[in-house]
């Protein structure tokens, strides 16, 4: 990875990929914010037991709906569970679902995109029409239907989102493959007797990946929003599992009564998390294609 980012004819010896990235980040405060937020989330995932102040699933009827205080930094919800600790632990669930879903979509979508872009014919056309079709449904409606039919479990949310995101990656890779397959270096590889498999995975794939890599970050953000939305309407993760959308949902009845902290802070966590992936995607796009930055 780092080797490909350093031009071979670099004039200065100290110009490694990391310092390239460092300089890029200094010029782009937005990217730095995104990266910082991501690091914070990773820390929350690893050190959740240390960072939290309470057991995230411990109900306490005596401390129901307490406002933020020294004892409960971000207050408590209706069953007296500590909101701050739940937000910290929820990072695990939310990112686990989103990263799994997007990872699966990437792993399945990329080979499909390669094949569909490289081999033309009725099978490729049919696949693309099916994808067009899947993508024409509103994502949230489709996700809702899939999850409620498969059963409302964490893994089913991830599977449903994975299915919905697969066409996105396949489409991006296909578009790149379509133009790459006409390039002369592919013809050269063919003439030197490379097999189709080798051409696809050794020559086309590395050159076709950039947009899909940017899309990973965008999709993770979308997956976080969709997971939260699904849990919010009761078609996803269930109580007492700490999950951001579910937490917003448990406070939604109280919001109108002026008890704002139950829904407010988990919502803020969703925003910061999604924002971090959006900022990283935006920066990654400019880093990969510097022409766009101007």
């Amino acid at each position, binding site marked *: 990875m780092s080797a490909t980012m350093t031009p071979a004819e670099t004039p200065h010896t100290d110009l490694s990929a990391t310092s390239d990235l460092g300089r890029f980040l200094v010029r782009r405060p*937005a990217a730095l914010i995104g990266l910082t937020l991501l690091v914070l989330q990773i820390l929350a995932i690893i050190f959740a037991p240390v960072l939290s102040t309470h057991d995230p699933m411990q109900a306490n009827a005596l401390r129901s709906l307490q406002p933020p205080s020294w004892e409960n930094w971000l207050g408590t919800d209706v069953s007296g569970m500590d909101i701050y600790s739940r937000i910290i632990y929820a990072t695990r669930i939310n990112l686990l679902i989103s990263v799994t879903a997007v990872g699966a979509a990437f792993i399945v979508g990329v080979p499909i995109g390669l094949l569909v872009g490289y081999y033309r014919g009725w099978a490729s056309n049919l696949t693309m029409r099916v994808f067009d*079709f899947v993508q*024409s*449904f*509103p*994502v*949230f*409606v*489709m996700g*809702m*239907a*899939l*999850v*409620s*039919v*498969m*059963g409302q479990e964490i893994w089913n949310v991830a599977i449903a989102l994975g299915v919905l995101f697969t066409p996105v990656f396949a489409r991006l890779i296909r578009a790149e493959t379509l133009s790459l397959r006409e390039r002369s270096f592919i013809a050269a590889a063919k003439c030197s007797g490379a097999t189709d498999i080798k051409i696809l995975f050794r020559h086309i794939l590395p050159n076709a990946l950039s947009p899909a890599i940017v899309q990973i970050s965008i999709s993770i*953000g979308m997956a976080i*929003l969709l997971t*939260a*939305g699904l849990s*919010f*309407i*009761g*078609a996803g993760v269930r109580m007492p599992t700490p999950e951001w*959308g579910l937490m*917003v*949902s448990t*406070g*939604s009845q109280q*919001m*109108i*009564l*002026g008890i*704002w902290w139950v*829904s*407010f802070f988990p*919502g803020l966590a*969703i*925003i*910061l998390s*999604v*924002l971090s992936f*959006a*900022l990283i995607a*935006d920066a990654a796009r400019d880093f990969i294609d510097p022409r766009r930055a101007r």
Partner: protein
Amino acid sequence: MGFSMTISDTWHRLPRPVRIVLARLPLLVPQMLGVIFVTFILVRLLPGDPVLLMLGNMATEESIATLREQLGLDGSIWSQFLVYFQNLIQGDLGVSMFTSNPVIKDLLERAPATLELITYAMILTLLIAVPTAIYATVRPKSIVDRASRVYGLAAGSLPDFWVALLLIFIFFTTFGIAVAPFGRIDPMLSAPEFVTGFYTLDALLAGDLQAFLSAGSRLLLPVITLAIVNSGALMKMTSSAFGEIWHSDFIQHQRASGVPERKIIRAALRNSLPPLITLTGFLFGFLLGAAVLVETIFSWGGLGQYAVMAVINSDYPALQGFVLVAAAFILIVYLIVDVLYEIVDPRIEV
């Protein structure tokens, strides 16, 4: 030969918009069949037996067999699909397990509420996003340009259900300037007589100012929620569509020839209409999904809230009906989008 000549003659004598519609319409048939098939397999083929899920712990051998027969679930998958399809053609989407009404009746009753909500939301979203995007493109590095960039990034990160709750907290609970976030109209008022199904329009048609004001004020918060969340993405996409035209050779040429800026903007706008129409179509589909969450919060009583109840109660006929209607609706929107696209772009041969 002569026959095909007359056909092509008549074809070319038809007005262009009619030709566009006629050429595009046949595509709808396979698409609709696809939608019907997908909604069918959605419930039948995925893991989890719908009959067991519906009956839950109360299932006995006998009740399972009865419900299976009732739903047409006995027999092969193809005969099941045929039964489903035949019923569908007759407008029978099954009976909701929760409301005990025919699903089609439930859906038709609730559709206008959702359509009114997303129509106003779309108008507001377009009014915010398009002028801002155009101004930002024409005046790069201006405050509007910078602000719209930040907004475009940030708005995409906002969960709509959270924004809705926050708006309720600020404008209803804290400042008391918004009306109660329950339903489409003050429960003390009777809904205006049904003409279009849009309460605002029907109230105006009936000359009932009070009902109009009530319906309008209840629309305010949900519409603003949807617009805040969705205008960011539309802004980004509009600036890239408009920007492409704005930096194109013919606009540069107009500028070099000293054409006044107003006129140039109008020409660029006219040329970015086709992509804008496509974006608006996507937006409609997106709003339909977003309405599910927002309707639930505002007890809107539309399709979205119905779908959520269906999910919570494992009401499969209702859920299947909703997905089918939502998909059919999207297909029709895309059809309209395609037709408008070809109408505004005279270069397309029909």
